Each structure stands twice: as C-alpha cells, then as structure tokens.
C-alpha cells in the first residue's frame, strides 16, 4: 500500500474510528432517552402548539427524504438509463437514501400523536389526501430501498456463514432495474407530493401555489445528489481512499450545478409571480406579518438563495472551482444546509402567519411563534447520529464503494 508516503496528519488522530463511533452512540442514546420521554409524556414535551402544529421534526423529515433523493436519481441513471460511468456511486446513493428514509420514519413515528396507529393509512384510505399518497409512496419506496440495500448488506464478511443469504442477495440484485423503475416512479410522486402537502392548502395563502411540488422535487434531486457526493468525498478523505474516479466526481458536481440553476430559475419566478408582480391581498398580508415577526426575508435571500443556491451553483459550474476539492466540499455543504433551511422556511412560514378570518381588525394581527424545545432537538440529534453511525459502519464493513482504491 502506498500509505507510507501519506503522512497521516496528526490532527486527525483525536477523531479516530473508536472515538467517533462512541460519541455517535452517546448522541443516539440521548435521542433514545428523548424518544422515551416523549412516549411517556406525549407531545406536550415539544414547543409545538395548535397554531404551529408542525416544527423541527417535520423539517427533519422533509430534509431527510429530500436529501435521500440521490438514491432514486443515481439508480435511475445507472440501472435504468444504463449510464455505466456513474456506477461507482450508485450503491452509496442507495445506502444514503436508505439511511435518510429510515431517519424520516423514525422521526415521523415520534411526531404523530398515536404511533401505535401508524398503519392506519394502509387500511383506512382517503385517496383525496396528499398525505395518504405520501404515506403509501414512502412505505413502498422504503421497501424498494431495502431490496436494493440488502444485496450490499449480505456481501459483508459476517454473512459468510449463511451462503443462502448471499444467493438471495444476488437474486435481489437482479431485480435492480425493476426496483430503479419503481423507485423513480414512487420518488417522482412523493418528493413532489411533500411540496404539494403545503401547496394544496387553499386556506394558507403563503403556501397555496402550484410551484411548491415542483420546487420540492427539483431541490430534492439537486440536494440528494449533492449529499451523496459530499458523503463520498468526506468518507474518502477520512479513510484515505479514492472512492470514485475524479472525472465522475466533477461530472456529478456539474450535474448538481445544472439542477441548482433549474431550481433557482423556478424559485425566482415563483417569488416574482407571487410577491413582486402580483398583489393577492391574503398572500401580501401574510408575508407582511411574517416579515414583521421573523427574519424570514434574511433567511430566504441570504441563506436559501445566496448561500444555498447562487454560490454553490457558481462553484459547481465554474471548472476551476469545481476542480478544487475544498471549494467543492464547501459548495456541497452549502447545498445540503440550504435545503434544510428551505424545508424549515416553507414549513414555518405558512404556520407563523396564519390566514385572517375574523371580520374585525384586532383578532388576527398576532403572529404565532415557535422555537424547538430541548427534547425536540435531542431527538433530532439522535436520529442524525443514527444516520451518521449507519454510514460510518457501512463504510467500514460493507462494500459501499465497489471501485474504491487506496489514495
């Protein structure tokens, strides 16, 4: 191995594998404690209210699913459109998607008032509900991800003792193109529907617009690919491996750049059409109330647009910057954080400035407010640590990157 000439930087020593796993386990433990506490005391342990019934956990949910979109994107590229040069990253994308969707389901299980009734949407159908469709799609797609992930899992050394599992894994692997097809269909449905769950609410003026579902899927495609590449680059740096070829890395970055531009185009027109060129009284009043009580303008323009879209788009599309690993890492991180900020902004904006319904002039002026409680933060941190732990262990024990080469 050529590791000898690579002087292992001493500052990495403090974060060796064992310490890292141990600290993640501690955070997972805190998350479990928060979950138990919530189970015992109910959702009154959150800072949610009847005016702001959705908050941090829904944001976590939407972000995890959005950032898990790399799985369907790369699966479709590799197994459906047969663009083989993307194959080195396909497994990692599936793996990260699996972690993202399981994270989302963990958080959601805590966020609903009656987790023991999680199966109700499967039995009691309301086909008019976007959320019903989302529930079905997410459950089916989680199954698809599991089918795609199991062959990777069964290749781990541990499963040497059960050869039939490996044979089963190979059988499942043959289904990959079919799974990629269903994955694409299901993801196009629910990634958009998550935006639609806000966009269809005619009573909430800030949300009610047809652009939300489209913006959700576009940001998910860009963000999902970005997270997959970001995780790959970070993992490669930490383990001193070249996990995917450099040309592929730059090609994905360019692809992400174009996805960002498309999303940015739609997002700016969405703003211009609903806020600048038009004046719908309900929307205008809601935006005004929102801006009076929250830093929405700043978080929208500075965090979402400038830091989350414009700057990363420049990095991804400008060849000199794209070739610079540090710039690329910063750009990808900004995209991922930008998506999280976006999901938070979308969720909270419609709730903090609710529709005015009183015929008087006093009753509606009060905007709602929300700051997550410690329990909410602890649970979210625990689930995040679960995802990081899963990825770390996967990197060590699973053949996530079939083409990995020592640096």
């Amino acid at each position, binding site marked *: 191995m050529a590791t000898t000439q690579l002087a292992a930087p001493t500052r990495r020593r403090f974060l060796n594998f064992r310490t890292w796993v141990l600290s993640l386990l501690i955070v997972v433990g805190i998350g479990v404690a928060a979950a138990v506490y919530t189970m015992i005391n*109910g959702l009154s342990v959150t800072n949610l209210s009847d005016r702001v019934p959705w908050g941090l956990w829904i944001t976590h949910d939407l972000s995890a699913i959005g950032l898990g979109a790399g799985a369907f994107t790369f699966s479709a590229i590799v197994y459906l459109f047969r663009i083989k040069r993307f194959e080195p990253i396909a497994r990692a994308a599936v793996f990260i998607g699996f972690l993202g969707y399981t994270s989302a389901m963990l958080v959601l299980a805590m966020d609903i008032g009656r987790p023991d009734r999680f199966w109700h*949407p499967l039995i*009691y159908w309301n086909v008019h509900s976007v959320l019903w469709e989302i529930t079905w799609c997410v459950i089916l797609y989680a199954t698809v991800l599991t089918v795609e992930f199991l062959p990777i899992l069964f290749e781990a050394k541990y499963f040497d003792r059960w050869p039939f599992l490996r044979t089963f894994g190979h059988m499942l692997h043959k289904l990959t193109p079919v799974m990629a097809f269903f994955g694409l269909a299901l993801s196009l449905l629910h990634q958009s529907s998550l935006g639609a769950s806000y966009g269809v609410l005619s*009573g909430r003026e800030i949300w009610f617009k047809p652009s939300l579902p489209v913006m959700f899927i576009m940001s998910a495609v860009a963000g999902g690919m970005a997270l997959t590449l970001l995780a790959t680059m970070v993992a490669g740096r930490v383990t001193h491996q070249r996990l995917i070829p450099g040309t592929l890395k730059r090609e994905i970055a360019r692809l992400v750049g174009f996805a960002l531009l498309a999303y940015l185009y739609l997002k700016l027109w969405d703003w211009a059409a609903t806020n600048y060129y038009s004046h719908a009284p309900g929307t205008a009043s809601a935006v005004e109330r929102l801006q009076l009580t929250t830093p929405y303008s700043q978080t929208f323009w500075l965090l979402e647009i400038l830091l989350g879209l414009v700057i990363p788009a420049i990095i991804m599309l400008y060849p000199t910057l794209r070739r610079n690993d540090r710039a690329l890492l910063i750009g990808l991180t900004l995209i991922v954080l930008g998506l999280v900020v976006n999901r938070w902004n979308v969720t909270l904006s419609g709730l903090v400035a*609710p529709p005015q319904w009183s015929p008087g002039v006093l009753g509606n002026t009060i905007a709602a407010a929300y700051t997550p409680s410690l329990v909410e933060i602890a649970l979210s941190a625990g689930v995040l640590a679960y995802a990081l732990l899963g990825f770390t262990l996967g990197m060590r024990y699973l053949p996530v990157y079939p083409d990995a080469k020592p640096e």
Partner: protein
Amino acid sequence: MADKNPTDQPDKKVIITRRQALKVMGATGCAVIATQLFNSGPFSVDAIEGLERVTEADSRYEWHMVIDLNKCVGCQYCIWACQATNNVPEDDMRWNIGFPEKTENGTDFYMTRPCLHCEDAPCVKVCPVGATWVREDGIVTMDYDRCIGCRYCEVACPYDVRRFNWKTPTGKNEYVPTWGVPEVERRSRGVVEKCTFCVQRIDRGLSQGLMPGVDPQATPACVNICPVGARQFGNVNDPTSPVAIYLDEHDTFRLREDLGTEPKVHYVRPDVNGQEA
C-alpha cells in the same frame, strides 16, 4: 465458547446460550407483534369492519347556525357551556373561542367562533386516514379511534378550529356543573378534536322525535345558554325553522367566503345599527 467448555468455570453454569436467548426474545417479539396486529392492528375485526362507514345522519337535514354579533354581549356563557357539555377542561383547548374585536369603523364587538362545519372542508380532504368527514346532514365529525394525530387537519383548517391533545386531559373541569354536565367522553392523548355542533344531542334528539334548534334537549349547548338569543340553530332545509327565518330576516355573511369552504355558520354584522347601517 462457553458451551463447548463448560467445566472452565464450575461455579457458573451456562443454562442458555446467547443464541438461544436471542431466539426466545425474537420469538416473543414476533408473538407480541402478531397479537397486536390481530387484536388492534390492521388484521383486527375493527379494522376490517371499519372500511365501511355507517352513515348515521339523515340527508333531509342540514344544520346551520347564525351568530348575531350585533346582539352578542360578550358574556362568554357559550364558551363555558361548551367546555362543560363537551368535556373540555383546558381553556386553551376550547372548541368555541371568543375574543374582543373591533370593526374597521371602530365599533367594539365580541367575536365568537365554533367549528364552521364547512361543506367543502379543507380538513376533511387532507386527513390521510379519513378520520374526519362531512356527514349527510352537513356536520363535520371526527372518529377519535381512527385519528393518528398527524395534525394535517389543524394545518389545513383556515379558521384555527381544531385542537390536538398534546397531553392526557386530566385536569378538573371548572365549568362543571355550573355551566352544564359532560355528555361525551374526554378524548385520549394524541388525537385531534373539534366542535361537533353537539352532535350527540342532535342524534339522540331526532331519535326521540325532538327537533334540533327548537327543542333545547336537541340543540347545541352554546345556543341554549345564550342569554340574549344571539345564536340560532336549525335545519335550513325547513323554511319554518328558527335558523331559516333568522337568515331570511337578516343580512348575514360567512367567514372568508373567498376560500370556497362554504361554512354553515353565518354571522350578522356587529354594526348594523351603527354608522354603516
């Protein structure tokens, strides 16, 4: 290791191996899950029977309410009677809310708001399990046993009508018995609830030959208690019902008609005798 060479530690007898323990735990877990699935889960009798909803209401009736803001004196009796009758101990869980208001012309009035029982209710459309629906007689009702507590209906409702049980309601209901006696069970933690137009009174009253809106036993508590008769209730399909007559004789409006929700609660302007006339 241990079961291959048990004589290593003579004082510590290996009774079950880790593998056996895991097997037993796994089997127990599966059994518990299977029992759950068949007792209260998707394979239970309730779940399968629940697929068909019993239509309990009669489509000959359509229940509407009129709230005369011009008559209302802001005594809050309707709010308290509602809390007592519908077993709502917490003030922030009120189904029927009220607050002092002012018109654009500066006229003070008291605004009260039950559930508006929209004909095209946004909350009904979004429920992923169909736990809330518009009955044949127009009442928007809830199935607390089906609700999963996702709170999408709360998010969808433009009128801030729905309330979620963030904790088990255990407090003492201070409005009992002064303002009424509870007629329904308290809802469990984790489900959404809302004003039902006192549906229990309507259903029982009709079965006893009483007419809601006319006979107090069959009329919502908030309507009965009002000392100034600011609330009228009844069947709008019957032109002789008190609510139909009231609607006929007064100019009324509904909240946010532009949203197209078609509410069944109508209001009389607070300043009909004021500057605007």
